[in-house]
């Protein structure tokens, strides 16, 4: 047997493409063996994307690219981006293997994604799945003892090939059948990135993404804290896409249990938050330049007064005696209130989420 199916059609592999270097290298290693490779990328809603940050003005000088698309283009392969927002909720809300350091359900997430890739493989007549996993690279999901768990729970079993560390693992179906040459696969392990960087240099890959905290907001301590606060305020673990988008944007303060404020930090964020003006009571200063602020929750008149004073605090009138703030309802009605900006001493540190 070789890399064809006997009818002169090459064997086909679907590669999980995160946009990072490891999955890029894994896909390239297999494509170089004559396998037809296509990429698959899952959008959970928690993905760290360059242009989520680019909502903020200060990042606009940086290139706005989707790294998975960028990788696919460099590899000259097709990329299928799959919306798994709804199905992924169960992974986050009921993590089968618990959370990592923050709200990241890493092992459950990996099993889920490989499982989705397995379904796609079966529906589209592909032969096996590739990931960029490396033994010991991640403390939760990429360990020697967790790799069989992912293979089993995803239903991929021995059709799951990890080219970067395959020679440290038992041979998979593509290796046993001779679709790929095991001798050309690698034995990477550990947290060092040097072997990957050396291989990238060998392949001529430059400008690849090197996300410091991985590709998921759930690994971020501050984001996880905001998500936990959201669930606590609701009394249940529940979210929709707007909820988790808004957790990525603005400064979040919870002055009282029944409401929180989302404060735009610059024009880019103000513009983004403006898109929610029909869903949330919102406010902005009219006498001075300042933020757009969404009121998330149920706020009475005294809450709105407090919110207006906080809005004034983040305006250019923060040192003035009085700032006029427009308080707007979701129907477009507007009321002007004159308030004294809060001083920093009046804002307890634990209001900041």
């Amino acid at each position, binding site marked *: 047997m070789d890399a064809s199916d006997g009818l002169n059609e090459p064997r086909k592999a679907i590669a999980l493409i995160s946009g990072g270097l490891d999955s890029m290298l894994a896909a390239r290693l297999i494509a170089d063996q004559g396998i037809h490779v296509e990429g698959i*990328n899952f*959008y959970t809603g928690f*993905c760290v*994307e*360059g*242009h*989520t940050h*680019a*909502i903020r003005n200060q990042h*606009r000088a940086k*290139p*706005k*690219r*989707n790294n*998975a*698309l*960028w990788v*696919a*283009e460099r590899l000259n*392969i*097709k*990329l*299928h*981006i*799959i*919306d798994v927002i709804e199905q992924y909720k169960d992974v986050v809300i009921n993590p089968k293997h618990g959370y990592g350091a923050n709200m990241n359900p890493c092992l459950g997430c990996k099993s889920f994604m490989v499982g989705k890739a397995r379904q796609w493989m079966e529906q589209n007549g592909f032969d096996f799945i590739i990931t960029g996993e490396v033994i010991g690279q991640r403390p939760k999901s990429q360990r020697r003892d967790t790799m069989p768990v992912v293979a089993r729970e995803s239903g991929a079993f021995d059709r799951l090939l990890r080219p970067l560390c395959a020679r440290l693992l038992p041979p998979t179906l593509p290796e046993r059948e001779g679709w790929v040459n095991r001798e050309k696969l690698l034995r990477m392990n550990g947290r060092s990135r040097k072997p990957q960087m050396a291989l990238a240099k060998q392949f001529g890959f430059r400008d690849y993404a090197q996300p410091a905290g991985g590709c998921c907001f759930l690994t971020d301590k501050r984001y996880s804290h905001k998500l936990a606060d959201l669930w606590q305020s609701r009394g249940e673990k529940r979210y929709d896409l707007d909820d988790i*988008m808004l957790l990525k944007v603005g400064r979040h303060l919870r002055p009282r249990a029944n409401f929180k404020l989302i404060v735009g930090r610059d024009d880019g964020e103000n*513009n983004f938050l403006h*898109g929610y003006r029909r869903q949330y009571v919102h406010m902005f200063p009219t006498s001075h330049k300042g933020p757009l602020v969404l009121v998330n929750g149920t706020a009475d008149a005294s809450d709105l007064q407090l919110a207006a004073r906080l809005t004034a605090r983040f305006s250019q009138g923060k040192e003035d005696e009085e700032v006029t703030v427009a308080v707007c309802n979701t129907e477009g009605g507007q009321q002007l209130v004159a308030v004294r900006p809060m001083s920093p001493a009046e804002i307890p540190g634990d209001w900041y989420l």
Partner: protein
Amino acid sequence: MSRHELDARRLLCPLPVIRVQEKVKTLERGDTLDVLCSDPGALNDIPAWCRINGHKLIDTRSEGHHITITIEVG
């Protein structure tokens, strides 16, 4: 060949790309699709998606905070 429109305003990338991907599956070769977006990342991502998948970028236009990207299904 017909002309279609997709409203992807207020969606952050990659959702505009995903919506384009879903819409294009329902169209015929040679059809034109106008995609309305508000995330500037779409200016990079939708053309990249077109190049990877064999579709043609016809035009991009910006008006205020909104962008229109026109593609031809390949």
